[in-house]
Structure formats: structure tokens, C-alpha cells
């Protein structure tokens, strides 16, 4: 090809990507840069700014609640990711067996995932209401397991576990869906061969199912970590006193009059964490 053609093609290429570059620049790059800029200022609503250097960052990093929320987030992440993966795996293996009404059962399992968050949150709050809820009614009035009524969602010690349980219940179907799709493509002869080799059910799971599912499991785990690191609505609606990182950010930045400088500083730090995760995602998930 002549050099003119190459040049022309390159020029055309540039013209073709220009709108996309422009839009990304305007809607993604510019806000990020402006946000970094704002994080060094004390910003008033009327737009006046005072340069405060790293004050916004030192305020944040000196706040004990920030570290507490990181701790809560870690427990929340481990609990939910392990829980959804294990439950999703168990459900998918069960649903991969032949039985009557299998399709109906497969569909029903997906319900929690598709139900709107707000409605199931209210359902859970009804169940655990300390005075009128069915949970306390059964535990205290019917089974007489204890005399004291508990507010499981309100009590900060149990709230985190209710929130984890809620997330597992709500989101395991997506893990189940991905696992089941893969399981259906595992050739039957692999299981037959393993059986001939004398493997029992556990051995077949360990030596056939798990290796076949390896990449799907890794993908699910990674995706769940990325989603749940930023999970806001489930936690905030169900138990706003469980301060995971996104909830802490919300209280810190957006409760009351917006502290725009402080909020910018928090989001810069969050951005760094997210960039790390995106890098991991691109390197691992997209390569599989």
C-alpha cells in the first residue's frame, strides 16, 4: 500500500473515533480531572472555593469511622461472596439432576434476583419487626425459645449478618444461573469415565465438575467482589446503620449540606480502588 493510502486511512480512522473520544473526554475524563481538582478545595454552594491542600484527605484518613467501615466492608464482601458462590453451586448441581417439574423449580429459584429490591426489603423488615413481625412471633410466642424480642435488623451486632444473609438470598440466583449454564455443557462421558475409574459422587464432583467450572467460579467471584464493593441500595434500605464503605461515603459526603471538597476526596480514593479492580477485570476475566 502506498503511504498516501495509509495516511488517508489513518486520517479517516481518526475522524471516525473523534466523536467517541470527544464524548468520553467530556463525560468521563473531564469530570474525573475536575473531581481531583475539587478535592483540594473547600467548596461552597454558591461556587466560591478556598484552597485547603490535602486537608480533605487528612480529615478522611484521620476519621476512625472510615477504617471501621473498611472492616465492615471486608466482612460483608467475604460473607456475601462465599455465601452466594457456595449456595449458587449447590443449587445449580441440584437443578442439573433430572426430576419432575425441574423447569418450574429452575424458574422459581430466580425469583429473588428479579424481584425489585425495595419490595423485598420491606418484606424482610416486616418479617423482623420487633413488635409485630412474624420472626419474633414464632420465636417468642409460639416456640418460647426466648422471652426477649429482638430487633435483628436494628441491632448493630446482628444487622450485618442479616444484611449478608439478605444479599446471599437475593443474589445467589445469578451465580446459580452462570454455573448451571456451564454444567449443562459438561460432556456426560466425562462423568461416565470417572465412574468407570471407580469415583463416587464426591470424587466425580471433585475431579470433573469443579475443574470444568473453575473459570466460571473465578469469574463469578470476581464479579461479585466488584459489584458488592459498591453495593449501596440493599444495605442502605435494609439496615442503614451497617456502615459499609459506600454507606459511609454517602453519610460523609451527601447527608445534609453537601461537602463537595470532602466528597471529591473520598471519590478520588474510591476511584483508585476501582481502577485496581478494573485492571484485574481486564487482565483476568476478559482473557479467560
Amino acid at each position: 500500500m502506498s503511504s498516501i493510502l495509509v495516511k488517508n486511512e489513518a486520517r479517516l480512522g481518526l475522524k471516525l473515533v473523534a466523536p467517541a473520544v470527544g464524548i468520553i473526554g467530556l463525560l468521563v475524563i473531564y469530570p474525573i480531572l475536575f473531581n481531583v481538582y475539587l478535592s483540594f478545595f473547600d467548596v461552597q454552594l454558591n461556587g466560591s472555593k478556598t484552597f485547603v491542600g490535602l486537608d480533605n484527605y487528612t480529615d478522611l484518613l484521620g476519621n476512625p469511622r472510615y477504617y471501621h467501615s473498611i472492616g465492615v466492608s471486608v466482612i460483608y464482601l467475604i460473607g456475601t461472596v462465599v455465601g452466594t458462590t457456595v449456595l449458587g453451586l449447590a443449587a445449580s448441581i441440584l437443578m442439573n439432576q433430572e426430576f419432575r417439574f425441574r423447569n418450574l423449580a429452575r424458574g422459581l429459584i430466580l425469583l429473588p434476583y428479579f424481584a425489585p429490591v425495595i419490595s423485598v426489603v420491606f418484606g424482610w423488615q416486616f418479617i423482623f419487626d420487633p413488635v409485630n413481625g412474624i420472626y419474633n412471633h414464632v420465636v417468642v410466642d409460639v416456640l418460647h425459645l426466648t422471652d426477649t424480642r429482638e430487633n435483628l435488623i436494628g441491632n448493630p451486632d446482628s444487622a450485618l449478618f442479616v444484611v449478608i444473609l439478605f444479599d446471599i438470598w437475593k443474589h445467589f440466583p445469578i451465580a446459580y444461573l452462570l454455573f448451571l449454564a456451564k454444567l449443562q455443557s459438561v460432556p456426560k462421558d466425562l462423568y461416565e469415565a470417572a465412574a468407570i475409574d471407580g469415583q463416587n459422587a464426591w470424587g466425580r464432583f471433585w475431579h470433573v465438575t469443579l475443574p470444568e467450572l473453575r473459570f466460571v467460579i473465578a469469574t463469578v467471584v470476581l464479579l461479585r467482589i466488584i459489584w458488592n464493593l459498591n453495593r449501596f441500595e440493599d444495605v442502605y434500605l435494609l439496615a442503614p446503620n451497617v456502615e459499609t464503605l459506600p454507606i459511609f461515603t454517602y453519610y460523609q459526603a451527601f447527608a445534609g449540606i453537601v461537602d463537595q471538597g470532602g466528597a471529591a476526596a473520598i471519590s478520588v480514593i474510591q476511584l483508585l480502588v476501582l481502577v485496581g479492580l478494573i485492571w484485574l477485570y481486564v487482565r483476568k476475566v476478559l482473557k479467560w
Partner: protein
Amino acid sequence: MKHSLLVTRAALVNGLLISSLASAATVEFWTAQTQTDRLKNIELLASTFEALNDGVTVNVVAVDENEMATQMAAAVAAGTTPQLIEVNSEIIMALGEEGIVDSKTHQGVINDIGKSRFHKGALTTLTSPSGDYYGLPYHGWIQGIWYRKDWFDEKGLAAPNTWENIETAAKTLTDKANNQYGILVGTKQDSYTEQVFTQLALSNNAAEFDAKGNLIFNSPATLETIQYYNTLAKYNPPGPQNWRARDYYLQGKMAMFFYSTYIMDDLSLAEVAKGSLSSENFKELSGGTFDPNLVKNTAFAPIITHKSAASYGTLSGLVALKTNNADDTQATKDFIEFMYDPASYITFLHMAPGGMNPMLKGIAEDPAYLEDPNGVFTLYGADKMKQIVSGFDDIRSFSVVKGKTFPASGAFFAKSVIPRMIYDVTIENKDPQAALDSAEAEMKTIMGE
């Protein structure tokens, strides 16, 4: 029917007073009244005003009170600031300090209506330290303890108007084994908690600021109030609670609770209470039936006395915001004055009889006002109404000390400093002094900004 008559009267009166405005102007009005029926009412008022003023458009936008500050920040940053908002006094003071409020328009309205017609305490609440009006008081409520008079009488308990009486009654009437609770005080990290705490703190002479503006929150009086509050919280329904738990009272599972005059509506009318037990307030729904004798058996203790007598209430105001358009500003001023016209004012206040009380003198005695569509005032009587409303001449709060206002108090409120302190003590079992220390530190940080 009555509403439309009132509005027609308003139309006639205003039609004579206000000559039509010349050019096109827009008033975007953000109201904190998000319920559909209230919005319809406000829109009716807005279209009446539009009909009277050629070329003026009034856009009514409902914004949740808790979202107001955030939405304002976004709107100001985007250059789409509304011309007028209606929101509570704490947010008004905080917005005033942000330099986006049009005090000149407020001054103009006060000059036109007459300063002496406003309840003094209400106007002071919205005055800046330098004497500017950050907003115009529009409606307000008084808080107190509503209690089961029949249960109190049965046990020989005195009315809950002192610390001792409240504690004794709460203790006596709590029977957790039978799912009965003595009292409701706020323990969630939201504004209800601050409202309950404020009244108790004021009755113990605790304050955020002294008259010179020094932060004196970390005091023995505050500490004592926190400890007392913690004691009361033991007789609460389990776990963190807020005002929604008042439905336990309507179900007969609670002996007393702190609440505003907004409850008058709910208590008076079986129908209204049934609505409250089923629709929006999902959480505490029991399916229990409404007790028609509840009004008769309920009494109200608005004043709590310990070291001093304290009543507590708060108000919402109208706030004009700075615009670049003189026509918009003029239209906004005219709209505000229209909203204070007795006919439209009463139409607005009747959206929540008892809950929304007038800030202008004379309205509470107006026969049109006393004939609310739900018949609430007939039940309570004109004298009682006048008494409730007169509280606004001498209203106490953390942000007003000896006639001086301290807007930082609004910022503390907006950041939920006190509710978080109370939550830490009552739910997380944090040491009261330690919680008070960190609340004070947080207040200092906010003031330093």
C-alpha cells in the same frame, strides 16, 4: 368544595390588588410536601396565581425534605436553582450561610405584610446573625408527649410533664414479656431523635451555644440529659426506632410517645388512622383494628419541666433564592405574598390540620381556619388551637439563644451529629461522655469549615 370556594375568594381579592405583571416570568417552587393530595392542593394554588398573573408560570416540584439540601447543591451547581423553596428552618439556616438566599425579597415581603403580624419567635428563628432574613416562616408544629390517659389514671400516674413523672410512667407501663412498651424516644440516626433530645436538653438548660456564640455543648447538663435519655430508651420497643413506631401507639402497644401536633389528625379520625396503619407506613402494620376511643383516651403534655420549662417545635419557611432575572424575582415575591393571603394560606394549612400551624397572627382565630375539612379543630376547640399557636411567640431551639441565631446549629442538624451521638449511646452502648466528646469534636470540625 370548601377549598375551591376559598381559592375563588383569594382570586377575587388578589385580582383587585395585583395588577397583571408585564412580561413572562417563571417561579419554580420546590415544596417538601410530597404526598399526592397535598401536591394537588399546592398546584391548585399555583394555577390560581397563574390565572391572576398573565405571563407568570409557577412550576411546583415535590422534593423530599431529606433530599432538599442535596438537590439544592446539584441545582445550584448546574445553574438551575429554583426561585422558591419551602423547607424546615434548620435547612434554611444552613442554606442561608451558603450565600444563595435572596434576603432582599424576604425583607420586601415582611415590609408589605407588616413585621408585627408574624409571630416574633418564628421570625427570629430565621434571622441571620447580621439581621437578614434567611427565610419567611410559613407553618410550624409543636412537639410534646402524647399519652394514654386511661392507663395513667388506672395506675395512678401523674401527667408526663417532668423528668421524674416521665421515667416513673415509662417504667410502670413497660411490660416487655407482653409486648407492651412504656415510651418512644428516637434512637435512629435521624432528625426525630434530635427533636426529642432537644426538648429534654432545653428543659435541663443544656445548650449548643452561649449568647456570645461559644460552643458550650460539652457540659454537665448535656451529659445528664444523655444519661436520662439512655434510661428512657430502655423502655422503647427493641432496637433503633424513629417516629414510625408511633403506629405501635395506635395499636395499643405503647403508653406514650414524643410527637408533633401532626398527630392530631391521625388521632381524631378513625379513617385517617386506618390509612396510616395500612398504606405508606408499611413497617409496623399489624392488621389490628383502630381503637375509636383512642382520641378520648389520649392526652397531650406539650411542656416538660426539669430545671426549666421547655416547649419545642419547629417551623418550615418559604425561601426565595437569588436569580439573575428581575422579572422572576418580582414574580416570586408576588407569589409569596399570594401564599400569605388568608384564603390561600388557610387552604395550604388545612392540608394537615393541627400539623401545619399559621405563623401570622389572627389566622388561628379566623372562622374559616377553624372549619377544617376533617373537623379536627372542632374536636379540639378554638382555645386549644390558639394556645398551641401562641407557642410560636416564645419558641426555643438550639439555634436561637437570647434572640441571637447561630446558623452552625443548622449545619449540626444537617449532619445528624446529635442523632449519631444518641444512637451510639443507646444502641451501641458507647460511654455517654465519650460520645459527647466526639460529638463536640465533630461540631468543631463543622464550624471550622
